[in-house]
């Protein structure tokens, strides 16, 4: 049966490309310990460079291919190592994610500016898709080269890692770079080599994939993410297993395309197969024991007191009321959108800033919120819709959290990302529609005007302030201490009787509910939503905005949202190519400012503390404590004597 063989061959070829992508990821992960989220964006960028050299500037095809593969990509890898990754050694998973996600977004942004997405570009297959027949099936030279490339790379990598001195050094470096340095090795040289190699592999994958699929910035970046699933199947270590996984995924995908019904929900299934595989593999992976304590990258700012948060909030609401009088209609909408984004960021402050759980699916919950608001709130925008939005998002949040609670750091990020992609590609396109917008009414509160742009702007401002005060109150209270403690040392919490997973589940549910609340308000700003509003990439932007503003303060959420708002207001007044810079700037800002989890908000907080230091008064309960003669007081008495003796 020719159709079957055709699907099989396309599947095998695509699988080979996923395998190349997965190998690149495994190379950097095993030698540097860094999971490069931007690997797909690098592959995409390389494909565009290839197009530029070959089609754009009419260079010879082989020369163009080799230039990208052997010169541009390795140089780019070196650059990444020197500028971004070297300072990351020993950094937390969290920081590593922010830097590589920032790079991903910046590359997507730069590609958007350089190769406008509105222009169609075609990258032909090598040898124009010519090929030969095997029985009844046409195999193109391009496909043969792809399979050959994988085989060649597999052989070279195998020899490199097992035979060559430098390959053995590469494996040693990740275990202990300092030891390698002491033994006369050069860990930095080795890591540079591995980044160069992995970028070449990404480029190879990208250049071979783009002609088979299409030259599209977002699609290529995300298609390559499918290769991540294969890398995880190999547990980011095992190359042969990753390759096998890649091929199984891709063949399965082709078969789904070939044999599943051609209409309705099932047509979307083939797009999300890799993501579903990724999700299942992640939750099935054996996890380490309860994590030991880690120390944060930076000391988190103190939590604002109730008085401070209420008074700051009041000032903000009054300022919003006054500003509303001056703003034009479009800017009122942008402002309202900013406050809604602020609520999304507050949900991340709770989940990631306090709880240490990295989520890459915020917008999925926002989308669910908008969906519930539209259906339950109806055209009148009933308050029931808001409750339904919180309930639906919180409920789905709990369902997502249940299997993923055991996951930490990178694995949790990947699991939430795969969830976001599934929602984006399969669910939202189905329930929200791609082109056809879903109407979402503005919430109707009896006795209070909410419908005009001006009124709605104020409503969103008040909503942001209330959520901020609530999140801060939660953090100051007993639950907040429990949450922070769970993040600082899960092992200690467990031995003190805390159900760590239960605490995480509650937190994830609340954060998802908050995002759902944001969604109920978000739809009302333009009056309708569509699937594009909740794309997986958007969730990355939201996370990076949170890092830029500061992920552990309410001030940070406000600043992160303001960054977006200022840019949106300015955009119409800027030349077109600058307007395309939104992703680039967000990515670059995340790479520079996002290094500290405190972000801009943290800098402001530390400035304020310097101007007006907090009183260090003892808690009231302790003022009458007299602990003379106890072990601690003996300790301090002697410290004091030492200090005196030193003078």
């Amino acid at each position, binding site marked *: 049966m020719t159709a079957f063989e055709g699907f099989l061959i396309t599947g095998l070829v695509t699988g080979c490309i996923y395998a190349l992508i997965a190998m690149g990821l495994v190379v950097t992960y095993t030698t540097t310990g860094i999971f490069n989220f931007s690997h797909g964006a690098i592959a995409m960028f390389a494909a565009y460079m290839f197009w530029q050299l070959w089609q754009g500037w009419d260079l010879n095809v082989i020369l163009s291919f080799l230039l990208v593969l052997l010169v541009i990509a390795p140089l780019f890898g070196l650059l990444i190592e020197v500028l971004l990754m070297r300072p990351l050694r020993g950094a937390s998973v969290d920081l590593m994610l922010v830097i590589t996600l920032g790079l991903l977004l910046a590359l997507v942004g730069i590609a958007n500016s350089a190769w406008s997405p509105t222009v169609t570009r075609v990258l032909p297959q090598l040898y124009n898709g010519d090929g030969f027949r095997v029985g009844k099936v046409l195999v193109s030279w391009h496909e043969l080269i792809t399979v050959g490339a994988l085989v060649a790379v597999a052989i070279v990598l195998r020899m490199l890692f097992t035979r060559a001195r430098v390959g053995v050094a590469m494996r040693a470096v990740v275990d202990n770079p300092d030891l390698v340095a002491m033994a006369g090795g050069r860990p930095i040289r080795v890591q540079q080599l591995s980044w160069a190699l992995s970028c070449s592999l990404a480029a190879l994958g990208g250049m071979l994939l783009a002609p088979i699929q299409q030259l599209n910035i977002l699609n290529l970046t995300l298609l390559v993410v499918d290769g991540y699933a294969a890398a995880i199947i190999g547990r980011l270590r095992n190359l042969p297993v990753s390759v096998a996984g890649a091929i199984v995924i891709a063949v399965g995908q082709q078969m789904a395309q070939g044999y599943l019904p051609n209409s309705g929900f099932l047509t979307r299934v083939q797009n999300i197969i890799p993501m579903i595989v990724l999700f299942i593999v992640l939750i099935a992976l054996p996890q380490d024991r309860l994590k030991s304590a880690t120390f944060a990258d930076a000391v988190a700012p103190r939590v604002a007191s109730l008085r401070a948060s209420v008074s700051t909030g009041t000032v903000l609401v009054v300022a919003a009321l006054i500003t509303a009088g001056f703003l034009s209609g479009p800017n009122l909408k942008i402002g309202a959108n900013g406050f809604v984004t602020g609520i999304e960021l507050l949900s991340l402050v709770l989940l990631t800033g306090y709880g240490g759980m990295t989520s890459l699916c915020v917008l999925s919950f926002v989308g669910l919120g908008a969906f519930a608001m539209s259906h339950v709130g109806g055209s009148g925008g009933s308050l029931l819709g808001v409750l339904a939005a919180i309930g639906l998002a919180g409920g789905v949040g709990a369902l997502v959290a249940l299997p993923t609670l055991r996951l930490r750091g990178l694995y949790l990020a990947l699991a939430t990302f795969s969830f976001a992609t599934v929602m984006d590609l399969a669910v939202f396109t189905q329930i929200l529609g791609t082109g056809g917008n879903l109407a979402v009414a503005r919430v109707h509160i009896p006795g209070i005007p909410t419908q005009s742009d001006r009124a709605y702007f104020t409503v969103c401002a008040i909503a942001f302030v209330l959520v901020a005060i609530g999140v801060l109150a939660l953090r100051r209270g007993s639950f907040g201490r429990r949450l922070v403690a769970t993040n600082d040392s899960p092992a200690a919490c467990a031995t003190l009787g805390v159900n760590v997973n239960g605490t995480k589940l509650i937190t994830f549910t609340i954060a998802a509910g908050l995002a759902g609340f944001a969604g109920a308000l978000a739809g009302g700003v333009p009056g309708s939503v569509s699937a594009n509003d909740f794309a997986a990439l958007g969730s990355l932007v939201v996370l990076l905005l949170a890092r830029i503003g500061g992920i552990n303060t309410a001030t940070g959420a406000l600043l992160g949202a303001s960054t977006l708002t200022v840019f949106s207001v300015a955009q119409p007044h800027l030349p077109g190519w600058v307007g395309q810079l939104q992703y680039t700037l967000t990515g670059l800002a995340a790479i520079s400012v996002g290094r500290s989890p405190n972000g801009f908000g943290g800098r402001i907080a530390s400035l304020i503390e310097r101007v007006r230091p907090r009183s260090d008064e003892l808690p009231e309960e302790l003022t009458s404590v007299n602990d*003379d003669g106890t*072990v601690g007081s003996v300790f301090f008495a002697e410290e004091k004597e030492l200090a005196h003796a030193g003078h």
Partner: protein
Amino acid sequence: MPATRGASPALDPVLEVADLSVRFGGINAVSDVSLSVMPGRVTGLIGPNGAGKTTTFNVITGLQEPTHGSVFIDGKEISTLPPYKRARLGLARTFQRLEVFGSLTVYENVLAAAEFHKSWSSDPTPPVKVAAEVIDRVGLRRVANARVDALPTGISRLVELGRALATRPRVLLLDEVGSGLNPDETAALGDLMLALVSDGTAILLVEHDVELVMRVCAQIFVLDFGRLIASGTPAEIQNDPGVQAAYLGSDEIAS
């Protein structure tokens, strides 16, 4: 569950470990170790580095799954319970490798533990009161407002001790809580332990300071290369030739 403190006669062990073995890869970290801990006493668990003391603690608290063997509290097997459920039966510990809540203050560390305790016990005492009492008892008033990740190791160990005490444990596992303390401080720590056991608490103590161990312990178990090589009163242990051989060269035990 109601804590029966102080009153219980020291007849039945409150904590028992039976035939415990833990294998990491090809290495036997712990082999066939059995020990019991009586209420109202300090029980010592000593041995050279790598003898399997911390691994035993991890198995007792549920952080490490044993290859073989069981753990009992009040004669009830708890081997299959997750760590938090064991804690709720009155088990608390400190860690050799610090596990403090670094981004909270000393007071908040202790208060959080008191709140945890309140959330799963029927103890009506307000957590702030428990926390104040613990701060008082351990002597952490001076650093109550300091973030723990800014404190020296020695005092951080005391924070862990205070945190464990805030859950009002019946069995307290202390993993080298005295390391980093000088003799005066160690003496005060010993006083605190004796005061705690006189209230009925059981303490299982891992400690390298032999003088402290000999002073506070009623019963001592000695591990070497994962095996139990001796058990008995401090005097018996000090005169045990096997123990002296295990410590040969370090002359720690022959004080």
